[in-house]
């Protein structure tokens, strides 16, 4: 007896595919709608509202929060300082990125100990940020003063307490923790470059430095520009691990705008939320055009395009 296999109709097949697709995407889309779109719409609305602590109601209050921001920026150097710290950190991270590309090249070309370097550079990412911060804190606050005292006999403060060194120490920590990702991304991008190009260059007598400068660097330009663009978006949100080190009591001299917002939300009563929401909206309004502008110029400058 011949078994006739039932062939699914086109409609049925489509329905099955749709069912499968929906089962996969419904939950993430729902989550995205609630926790991204919903939250952001709420933040935008809240930026134009005030909170009445007596009734527990938010009410529309025009531009009052934006006026307060203007006032705060006018009289409070600390906000400008936080902005400066954020921009400074971005600048440093860009410089670091250039240095990282050299290192990534070394790793991508599988030179001596490159495998070990890759693992060592990535260790800070395997260990959680809070653990790294704790280790770093013990090093700077316990080990470093003890070391200096044993070498020089001088008593010194920990690097995270001394006002002259705290910003540098934080930057160093951020570099230490950010280095691995960039190195991995760049070395992977360089590894993807067709070997025949390198070989041809080698036959033409190109030195490793020139190979890096004229072949690898231009060819990973899209990866670099991604980091540059994402970094700009992060200027207003990066809190430089300050919360991991100091909780909500970091010294204002090292605040970034990201930390200012985070700290604000952490300790705020409901009545402070609209002000913080307005600050968030304002930062977005500033950062969006800059991001697009930079993207535009980087796209134009992209040698692979």
């Amino acid at each position, binding site marked *: 007896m011949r078994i006739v296999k039932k062939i699914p109709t086109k409609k049925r097949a489509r329905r099955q595919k749709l069912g499968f697709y929906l089962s996969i995407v419904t939950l993430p889309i729902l989550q995205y709608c609630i926790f991204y779109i919903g939250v952001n719409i709420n933040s935008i609305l809240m930026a134009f509202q005030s909170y009445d*602590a007596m009734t527990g109601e938010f009410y529309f209050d025009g531009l009052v929060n934006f006026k307060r921001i203007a006032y705060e920026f006018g009289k409070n150097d*600390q906000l400008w300082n936080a902005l400066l710290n954020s921009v400074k950190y971005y600048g440093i991270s860009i410089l670091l990125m250039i240095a990282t590309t050299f290192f990534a090249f070394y790793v991508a070309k599988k030179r001596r100990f490159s495998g070990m370097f890759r693992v060592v550079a990535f260790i800070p990412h395997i260990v959680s940020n809070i653990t790294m911060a704790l280790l770093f804190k013990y090093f700077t606050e*316990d080990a470093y003063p003890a070391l200096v005292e044993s070498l020089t006999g001088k008593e010194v403060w920990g690097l995270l*307490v001394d*006002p002259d060194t705290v910003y540098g120490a934080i930057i160093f920590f951020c570099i230490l923790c950010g280095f691995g990702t960039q190195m991995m991304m760049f070395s992977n991008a360089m590894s993807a470059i067709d070997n025949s190009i390198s070989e041809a260059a080698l036959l033409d007598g190109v030195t490793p430095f020139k190979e890096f400068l004229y072949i690898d660097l231009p060819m990973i330009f899209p990866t670099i520009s991604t980091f540059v663009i994402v970094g700009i978006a992060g200027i207003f949100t990066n809190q430089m691990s300050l919360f991991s080190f100091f909780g909500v*009591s970091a010294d204002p001299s090292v605040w970034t705008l990201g930390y200012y917002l985070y700290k604000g939300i952490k300790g705020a*009563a409901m*009545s402070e939320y609209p002000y913080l929401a307005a600050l968030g909206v304002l930062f977005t309004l500033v950062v969006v055009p800059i991001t697009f502008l930079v993207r535009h110029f980087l796209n134009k400058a992209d040698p692979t395009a």
Partner: protein
Amino acid sequence: MKIAKRIIGLTLSVCFILSMCTFLTGCGTSSGGGAIEVDNDKTQMYVFSYNGGVGNEWLDETIKAFEAKYANTSFEEGKMGVQIIPDKQKMTAVSMLDSFPNSTYDIIFNENLRYNDWAAKGNLLDISDLVKEVGDDGKTIESKLSDNKAAALTARDGKYYALPHYEAFRGVVYDIDLFEENNLYFAADRTYSDFILSSTEQRSAGPDGVVGTTDDGLPATYEEFFKLCDYMVQKGITPFVWSGEQNAYSEFLLYALSETMAGEEGAKLNYNYGVGSLDATTNIVTHFTNGQPVVEAMTITEENGYLLRQTEAKYRALEFLFTIFNKSDYYYKDSMGKLTMSNKEAQQTYVFSKLENKPIAMLIEGTWWAKEAADSVELSISAFGDAAKNRNFGWMAMPGVYSGTVDSSNGKTQVLNDCMNCYCGINAKSTGARLEVAKLFVKFCYSDEGLNIFTKSTGMLRGVNYELTEDTKANLSSFYRNLIELRNESVIITPMSSSVLFINNETTLTAYESYWNSDQYLFPVVAFRGGQKSAVDYFKGMAMTQQDWEATYGRYINQN
């Protein structure tokens, strides 16, 4: 092959669905109290209790007594007795603000709970009827609340939405044994020495100026306090230790000093801005002459609330801190900004110091410290044996006068600020039998029986007035006995008021921030470290102009 694919697909789907089910079940169990099995023959009620300073042994003991009391009472058809399911986590009140109404919890015990936000949001049930109802002990809960507390809790709209969970103050712990052994008390008769020469010698009247109270022999003025510190240093004793990790701890001393110096009404001005105040006059520093503050008594209203940043009490407290922080003999080295010197480490250093012959006299802390330091005490007993047992610590009364002599005419009653915002409330969405049980449970917690269970277990008070039984007293450590004695001689204030200005801005109004040119300091300890700023500079930086005040808070002024 296709069948194999289908089987794999089916297996994966089942695994996925099962994992979802496990996730959902986990949620229920977690919010329902972890591993406790639900007894379907009883009515359940869910309690959230923050796992912080006071621990949760008290809750287990209260639950045991409550369940026994209602073992034969039916709250639902077909069920007999109650089962209270506790959930003890470190979930902060801030993170629960939005989720609490739709959570499983019927009751919350938490600290740093912003009463006004929670009440305004409708999270908490109006429990006025419960508070005013006569309980099994023949008393209403309201009758156990001090006037200050009752006024604070009803300041919003005359209704009660929560009750004090536990009472906590910031200030200074002192080692009574060390004080006794080294005669570190001021003498009543100063003919031969400022300090007593033997433990039997009569002590000075202390900060309150009254002989025979808990603070006898303790420094009554700021000048005497520094004299005591010098005397300690002479004897090889380090006066202070505190957590270097959290700058806020060093501020505890600042609050304790300034509140007692300002007095009850003066300290309350920081919260009520003259609204409903019995005496809104306080000393304001108008300027400095030769480095000394010139003060003028002024009446505070919401219009000139900015002046409260320039009170004499705040300046004197800052000056006190500056003196302490700038004499390295006065403090344990790691306290001055060592980020790895946590509060627990400071406690352990303090507990061990006397036993290791490197004595430290005082610890800047909160009254919850003894519970937190229990591990350190155990550790010290295992290391030093009998010498570490039955030690006596006390809560230090703060001087309220800057200089001169203090007697009953100018002595200051201690002002203790119950500042931790610890509350117990019922979920506004609780209904039916669970609500009935929740109300009974709260009533039980605040009955004399429940209150004694709490104090016996934690050593701390609930933040209401009640008689301690002999059994409870016998179980108290010497520290809590001393604290309760001092508390009974003090005035307790709460950082709450009916001022619309304060209710809308409570997180920004009470800070000790200082702006000095382009520098901003959140904590005096940071500015004073290494003498970067003087007390005068810091204090001047705290000033706020009328223009700033109006720009920031103008819309809330005179809204009562």
